[in-house]
């Protein structure tokens, strides 16, 4: 573990791009938005770093669609994401670039490399950042704490900082950048890593109906028991082109298939109407549905975090409320 030696307060803010199979993840654009605002506060500039065996095309794509200076870091043998390799390479490059901050996603990959890199760089780790602010002494970072029921306002010590950005918190601008970026190539030697990637498996049977549905009715732990799923199905049955979904705990319990899971490790949906039933609103779930056009949330917990992003909030027991709603719908028909 080597110490980060060179870094400066107004060195570049380095975005670590997310990409897979030659495709740039749309999240990278959001990371660049957070990085740009950070860079403005530090009077510095944004650099996008892309790590992998074959990176030139992804780098061109990033330069064209996001802009900024793009560093294509070619690493022989690095075929996909590898946490240990990312940490070793970044711990080497970040000080040589004199970076003031490194920005990744608060995703399953970002959460794998970023805290470890912070140890190597003796850097402050800021996890799941949702907003930026500043006071007289410098920058402040806002993130969700206490089950998403409060925002933590965090002050880091001196740079460098390692930041992971909450997906959805810094929406990317539509269209192409005014000034396309330029690509610079870096060649790294291959990394000897102890952890070995054996395989990468694509989602087997994601419910396509889910991402195409116009109405999604989702059940969380708050539905209490699997028998109550019938209420969720009946509620979904009120709408045409609807689908039933669930939060991760409900899928873990086997009440719904993993193909029906909405959230960080499941599907990302943005239907016309999303009805959340008994879901607390942890960020791992809400990143998958916060873009819905209209959100109705039903929960017995009046302080549930889900209410902070709902259009209509109903504090009630699901097993009483959904039958009452179904009853009203039936009356309207007759």
């Amino acid at each position, binding site marked *: 573990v080597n110490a980060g030696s060179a870094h400066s307060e107004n060195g570049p803010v380095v975005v670590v791009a997310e990409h897979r199979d030659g495709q740039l993840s749309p999240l990278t654009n959001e990371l660049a938005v957070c990085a740009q605002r950070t860079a403005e506060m530090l009077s510095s500039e944004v650099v996008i770093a892309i790590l992998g065996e074959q990176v030139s095309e992804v780098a061109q794509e990033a330069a064209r669609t996001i802009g900024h200076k793009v560093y294509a870091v070619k690493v022989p043998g690095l075929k996909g994401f590898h946490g240990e390799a990312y940490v070793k390479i970044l711990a080497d490059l970040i000080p040589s670039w004199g970076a003031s901050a490194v920005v990744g996603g608060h995703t399953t990959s970002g*959460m794998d490399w970023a805290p470890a890199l912070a140890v190597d760089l003796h850097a402050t780790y800021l996890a799941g950042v949702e907003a930026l602010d500043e006071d007289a002494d410098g920058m402040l970072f806002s993130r969700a704490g206490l089950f998403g029921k409060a925002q933590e306002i965090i002050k880091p010590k001196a740079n460098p900082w390692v930041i992971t950005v909450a997906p959805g918190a810094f929406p990317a601008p539509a269209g192409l950048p005014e000034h396309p970026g330029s690509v610079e190539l870096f060649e790294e030697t291959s990394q000897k890593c102890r952890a070995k990637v054996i395989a990468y498996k694509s989602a087997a049977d994601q419910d396509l109906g889910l991402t195409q549905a116009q109405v999604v009715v989702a059940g969380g732990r708050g539905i209490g028991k699997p028998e109550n799923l019938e209420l969720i199905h009946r509620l979904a049955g009120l709408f045409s082109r609807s689908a039933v979904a669930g939060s991760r705990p409900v899928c873990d319990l086997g009440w719904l298939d993993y193909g029906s899971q909405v959230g960080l490790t499941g599907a990302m949906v943005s239907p016309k109407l999303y009805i959340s039933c008994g879901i607390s609103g942890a960020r791992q779930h809400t990143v998958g549905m916060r873009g819905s056009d209209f959100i109705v949330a039903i929960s017995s917990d009046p302080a549930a975090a889900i209410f902070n992003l709902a259009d209509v909030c109903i504090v009630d027991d699901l097993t009483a409320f959904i039958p009452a709603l179904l009853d009203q719908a039936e009356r309207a028909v007759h």
Partner: protein
Amino acid sequence: LKEWRQMRLLVCLKQVPEPESLFDLEQGRVIWRRPFRTRMGSLDEFALETGLRIKDAFPNTTIQAVTLGPISSSGILHRALGMGADQAFHIVTEDEQDLRPLAVASALADWAREGAFDLILCGAMSEDAMQGAVGPMLARLLDIPWATAVSSLETSQDASSIEVTREVEGGNRQILELPLPCLVTIQSSPFQPRYPALSKLLEAKKADIPAYVLDARSLPAEPEHIVRLEVPNRSRAGVFLEGSTIEKAVQLMAILRQRALL
């Protein structure tokens, strides 16, 4: 019966408030309302269950549960013993001492170095803070390989390596092989954590859990601190419907019709 070398597992646990606990924010600080109930972090429970399943398959395994927290957090260690951990250890912090992830990882690293553990298991994140930082930091401080967000784990026949499945975005999975010693953070899975056996729980309640008080001077300077807590902004209208259950149902029907959603 096959003979394996003994595997030593360390499971790191954190006490968290019950998710529905009520609190007030006063001058940027949290004041919990009574009764204030706590529990073992739910993903930490999955981490312990993962360890117990390894022990089921390799009986020659010892599991030590460790937590870092105030005196009042010893309850989760009793529960861990009740679930089947062999030993428990408590690194005691002061009541109001809210340590940042690097301090927690450093204190755990000091402890883990003494124990020569083959495998360290943590929850993928705590459900209250949702940072997921301690696991990878601890691995890096100990200079051992790691994998995060693991939903299934297989130990090799000779107990020299493990194969893990990481859950990544969009329901995709990455499969990794790691040599021991290593650290793995555990995501939830269909393997629901077992309930403690009543007899074991009674026995565990009587157990004297070894502890030491954390010397804050031995920790690295905190790289960041929480200035204050704020009430979250509402990203949307967030209209709360009022009235009886039926009245609320009538109102929701009207809203859905008005928006041509029904």
